[in-house]
């Protein structure tokens, strides 16, 4: 090893009592490295040992008591409260969105009932509502079914319905109930 390598190694051996034979031999032969080592060795003496940083017995006991207190006290389950609140907020959000979506689907932008929802309504409540709406429309005589043609409701109204209209009604509604 050259001087640079020796000095690098000496820096790593600070705090150790024993030097390797190779380093010892080098220090005996090289005054620069010997001075370097002595400068490190003396200054590290100033660092002392850990005992300068020890706690008193009373301080040790106080910390132990505090740790025991903190580890014995049941933790407030703050996280679970947040979880509950989050879950509640999520449920409210889903219900709200569902309600708004349902309402938005049933009414057009003028606030009138949108008959298109009748076609797609699959929930039971929606089906009942659809049936009522259909009955009302039949009675009012402005029913617009598949081909957007007004149908005069009356005894002969079935004459105005095309085969396509009839099939649609049969497929989607209980005709006897409507009548």
């Amino acid at each position, binding site marked *: 090893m050259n001087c640079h390598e020796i000095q690098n190694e000496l820096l790593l051996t*600070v*705090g150790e009592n024993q030097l390797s034979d190779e380093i010892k031999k080098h220090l005996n032969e090289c005054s620069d490295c010997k001075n370097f080592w002595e400068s*490190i060795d003396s200054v590290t003496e*100033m660092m002392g040992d850990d005992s300068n940083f020890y706690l008193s017995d009373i301080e040790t006991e106080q910390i132990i008591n505090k740790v025991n207190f903190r580890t014995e006290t049941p933790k407030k389950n703050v996280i679970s409260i947040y979880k509950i609140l989050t879950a509640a907020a999520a449920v409210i959000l889903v219900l709200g969105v569902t309600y708004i979506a349902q309402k938005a689907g049933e009414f057009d932008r003028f606030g009138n009932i949108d008959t298109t929802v009748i076609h797609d309504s699959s929930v039971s409540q929606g089906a009942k509502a659809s049936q009522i709406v259909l009955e009302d429309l039949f009675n009012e005589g402005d029913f617009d079914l598949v081909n957007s043609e007004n149908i005069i409701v009356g005894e002969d109204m079935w004459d105005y319905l095309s085969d396509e209209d009839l099939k649609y009604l049969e497929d989607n509604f209980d005709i006897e109930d409507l009548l």
Partner: protein
Amino acid sequence: MNREGGTDIQELVLKAQKGNKEAFSELMKVFMNNVYSLTYKLTGEKDIAKDMTQDTFVTAWDKIKSYRGEGNFAGWLYKIAANNCFNFLKRDKRKVSLEMINVESMEIHKDRVLQPDKIFENKIRRDFVLAFMQSLPEQQRLAFELRFYKEMSFNEIARILGSALGTVKTNYREAIQKLRQLALEKGWQK
């Protein structure tokens, strides 16, 4: 009785892992000063060091079941303590430089530093060490603490810190270089 690394420690750890609080209290007694001296030198303030020591043992109790006996128990505690300290220092943002810790007063006492009498020995040395440690970057500070004071091998330190062996050696080497340079500048050498 030096119980560190002995079977007593292993037994106490096993008992503590099963929820035995008395065993954990015994572990705290054994390692209290080791942890405290580390937190003191990393943070530079006694009261903060006490809080960090307390936090370290609370964390250790919470996580003791996850300790699988890898390395020694002291090293495991040091890792927790160092993490707590560095997290605190990140939040605290206080920068303590060597100049701020009144190096001038230490120059007055430099003869006592080198040949301290019993009255001033502890305080002067402690002040000097704290001043020096605070002047180091965190990783160098920790490498110096674990190597010089805790006498851990470089391999152990590298494992604890999750760093490369070469990095740990470099940090330690630079810390010693700074210490030597400081002593030369201030004329603190014999």
